[in-house]
């Protein structure tokens, strides 16, 4: 097993090598974290404009002006794309995975530090490119984050489908390359750089979740990258992969013979695993935090590992459930639907096990624990609308309505974000050497939990009543106009919830400089990152190599000196 330790025994001294083009996974993790933080505030601002426009379509907003239907569609496209790629994929994996995974397995760094640096800076370029789409002539594209052709493939399909759409696809392609590099690094690191005694079944569930996420990323992003390149060729190089003979406002396009459904298959072959790429790390963090703050071992460690593996496995076989209404063969709907229901089983197992972990525990309500409990609640609520959407016959009524929007926002949006909040509050002391403010954290938690439910639960009612998504206003269809009061309620809830996010931002930056100093192990946790100093030295363990003697969640062991046994504690401590 090769270790890159020799290369890294001395930390670089210059500012640029230390903080900008750093090879240290901890610095890169923090860089990813701040990139995602920037992206999430951009994405949130876009959603605020959308919520205001929906209830006041003709309002002229200060600085922004009037939002026209095409502007609204550009907002929703960019909101979705930025959130899915640059927040939900970037923060949990690139951010916390990068920072914590090598330390949790006892490694001095990632297996390929240069590749790691390249992944981050490539992601950064991708972010700049997508933001640029706002500022080119025609503006950002209208085709939604799913980019279905022919709309995304033909320039005359609408404003924004010119250079804006090219930049959008280019950005995603760049992001795919970055994620592929990252995935290789995570997989190699987990397989090759584990400390002595860190067997696979002693890895913290966070490590398992990042490892499985990396495997999903390796298999999924390659497909999206190819699809993106084909789409660029359809737009600019005379091919017709995705566009058949068609006519736009009486003008025939030069395409012929392509299949719009081919894009949907390729996109969702990536798109569904992407959902798990966003949520799996959250599951890992929730498991870690629930066990730590319940002072009890995780309930059913092996079941948790197998559940995550089977979620990853089934995740690649269910993409067709996004396409029940698309005109693909109705026979295949049976298969996709049953496989989708199967994926509900490991998800249910995980929920049972989280509840089982807290049962008979000693729950300590520190901020990370609150977010982990919120994660479980949101995961249940978001997950349980799945069995409706997984049945093609119910999807007839619910597909492309607000029911779907509520479903995926609760589970892959808000639940995943709660995973990120839990991770931030849990690892902040290790990353920045100071504690975050508990009171501010708790206020932020309560407002955000109530607020997100108030925004996204009503979407299910709207969807049942037939409110279609991606409508820039509800003034044209009579039955939809009647639903406006509920939309109004959601907008109020969104304004309050968004305002509360500044509390998190203030807490983050204030604590970074003014928070009380953190000890090495403030939460009395057991995993390896809490055995080293706060913050950890450049090579993570100060020249020593940890030896692992215990499983990751040995809390409340009868007869032990303390109520927890760290993974590196000597083996004679009563545990295994």
């Amino acid at each position: 097993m090769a270790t890159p330790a020799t290369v890294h025994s001395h930390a670089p001294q210059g500012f640029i090598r230390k903080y900008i083009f750093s090879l240290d996974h901890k610095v890169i993790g923090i860089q990813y974290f701040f990139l995602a933080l920037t992206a999430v505030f951009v994405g949130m601002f876009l959603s605020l404009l959308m919520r205001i426009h929906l209830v006041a379509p003709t309002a002229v907003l200060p600085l922004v002006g009037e939002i026209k239907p095409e502007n609204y569609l550009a907002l929703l496209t960019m909101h979705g794309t930025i959130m899915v790629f640059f927040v939900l994929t970037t923060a949990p994996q690139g951010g916390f995975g990068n920072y914590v995974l090598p330390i949790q397995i006892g490694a001095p760094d990632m297996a390929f530090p240069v590749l790691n640096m390249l992944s981050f800076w490539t992601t950064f370029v991708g972010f700049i490119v997508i933001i640029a789409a706002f500022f080119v002539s025609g503006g950002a594209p209208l085709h939604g984050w799913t980019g279905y052709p022919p709309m995304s493939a033909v320039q005359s399909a609408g404003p924004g489908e010119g250079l804006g759409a090219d930049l959008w696809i280019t950005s995603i392609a760049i992001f795919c390359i970055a994620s592929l590099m990252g995935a290789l690094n995570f997989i190699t690191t987990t397989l090759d750089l584990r400390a002595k005694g860190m067997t696979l079944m002693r890895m913290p569930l966070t490590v398992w979740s990042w490892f499985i996420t990396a495997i999903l990323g390796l298999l999924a992003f390659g497909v999206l990258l190819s699809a993106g390149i084909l789409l660029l060729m359809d737009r600019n190089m005379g091919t017709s992969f995705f566009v058949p003979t068609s006519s736009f406002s009486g003008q025939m396009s030069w395409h012929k013979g392509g299949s719009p459904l081919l894009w949907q298959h390729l996109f969702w072959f990536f798109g569904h695993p992407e959902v798990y790429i966003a949520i799996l790390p959250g599951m890992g963090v929730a498991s870690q935090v629930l066990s730590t703050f319940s002072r009890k071992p995780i309930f059913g460690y092996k079941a948790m590992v197998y559940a995550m593996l089977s979620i990853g496995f089934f995740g690649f076989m269910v993409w067709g459930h996004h396409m029940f209404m698309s005109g693909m063969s109705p026979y295949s709907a049976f298969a996709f639907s049953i496989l989708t229901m199967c994926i509900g089983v490991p998800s249910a197992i995980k929920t049972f096990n989280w509840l089982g972990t807290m049962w008979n525990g000693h729950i300590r309500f520190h901020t990370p624990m609150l977010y982990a409990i919120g994660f479980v609640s949101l995961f249940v609520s978001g997950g349980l609308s799945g069995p409706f959407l997984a049945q093609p016959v119910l999807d007839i009524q619910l597909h492309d309505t607000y029911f779907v929007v509520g479903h995926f926002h609760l589970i892959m949006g808000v639940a995943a974000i709660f995973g990120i909040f839990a991770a931030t509050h849990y690892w902040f002391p290790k990353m920045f050497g100071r504690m975050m403010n508990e009171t501010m954290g708790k206020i932020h938690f309560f407002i955000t939990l109530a607020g997100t439910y108030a925004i996204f639960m009503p979407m299910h009612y709207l969807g049942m009543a037939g409110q279609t998504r991606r409508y820039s206003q509800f003034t044209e269809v009579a039955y939809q106009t009647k639903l406006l009061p509920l939309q109004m309620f959601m907008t109020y809830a969104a304004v309050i919830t968004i305002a509360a996010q500044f509390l998190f931002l203030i807490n983050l930056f204030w604590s970074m400089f003014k928070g009380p100093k953190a000890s090495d192990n403030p939460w009395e946790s057991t995993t390896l990152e809490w055995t080293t100093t706060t913050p950890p030295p450049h090579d993570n363990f100060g020249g020593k190599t940890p030896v692992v003697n215990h499983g990751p969640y040995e809390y409340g062991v009868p007869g032990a000196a303390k109520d927890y046994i760290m993974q590196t504690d000597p083996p004679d401590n009563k545990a295994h």
Partner: protein
Amino acid sequence: MGLALMLLIWLITLVSTYFFVAKTWWLPHGASAATNWIDGQFTLTFIIVGIVFLAAQLGLGYIVWRYRETPSSPPVKYSHGNTRLEIIWTTLTTILFIGLNLMGSSVWASQRYPFDPDPSAVQVEVTGMQFAWYFRYPGADGKYGKTSFKLMDPSAGGEAAVGLDTSDPASKDDVVTGTMYIPVNREVDLSLRSVDVIHDFFVPQLRFKQDAVPGLNIHMHFKPTEIGEYEIACAELCGLGHYKMHGVVHVVSQEDFDKWLAAREAEKQ
């Protein structure tokens, strides 16, 4: 803290459930033959999922409060889990989910099979384009005339918009309109197509939704069971006018339908 969290989780759960159970917002009144099956399956799923939702959320709230750490808490029960419990709930969930799914499958099939349309069905071709719906009836010969992309002229509307080739004899009695009329209690054999981007023909009250995809001609059938006017809403993002790409399905008696169609034929001659 445990108490506050329990109360918040319970409050969210009960308020959410109330609006579902009270049916404050619910599926719109259904007016097609599929309504009973679809709504029945929806209600069944809703009851099962609702019980799981209540049990999980109320349980979560209770556990959080009950097992909060206090000075008098008994020592935690050191346990790595319980394999028997894991097997029980895995099996139960599998049966529940797969069972629900199999029950719903027959309904799904009924709307799509057989592919050969009922010969007595009313034929209507639906064409989506940015941002309008056109409806074509094949006329007495029961055959749609040819259409051509080269002849399409959306600004002219009607036949020219869908590019009807008037030199084709089968096209002579084709009727193209901007509103859809269909007779009540008869199967409708629908051909869905699109000339530009993907659209979706969604009529909530008829429990009908299907994408119209360029390059494909998608056959579907359904049977309206109540006379009335039902709104069509495009349900697939199709461009800046997506929100106003709507239309109306008029379900009328057989006599009214015949009269309406004859009047359109007469206008055409």
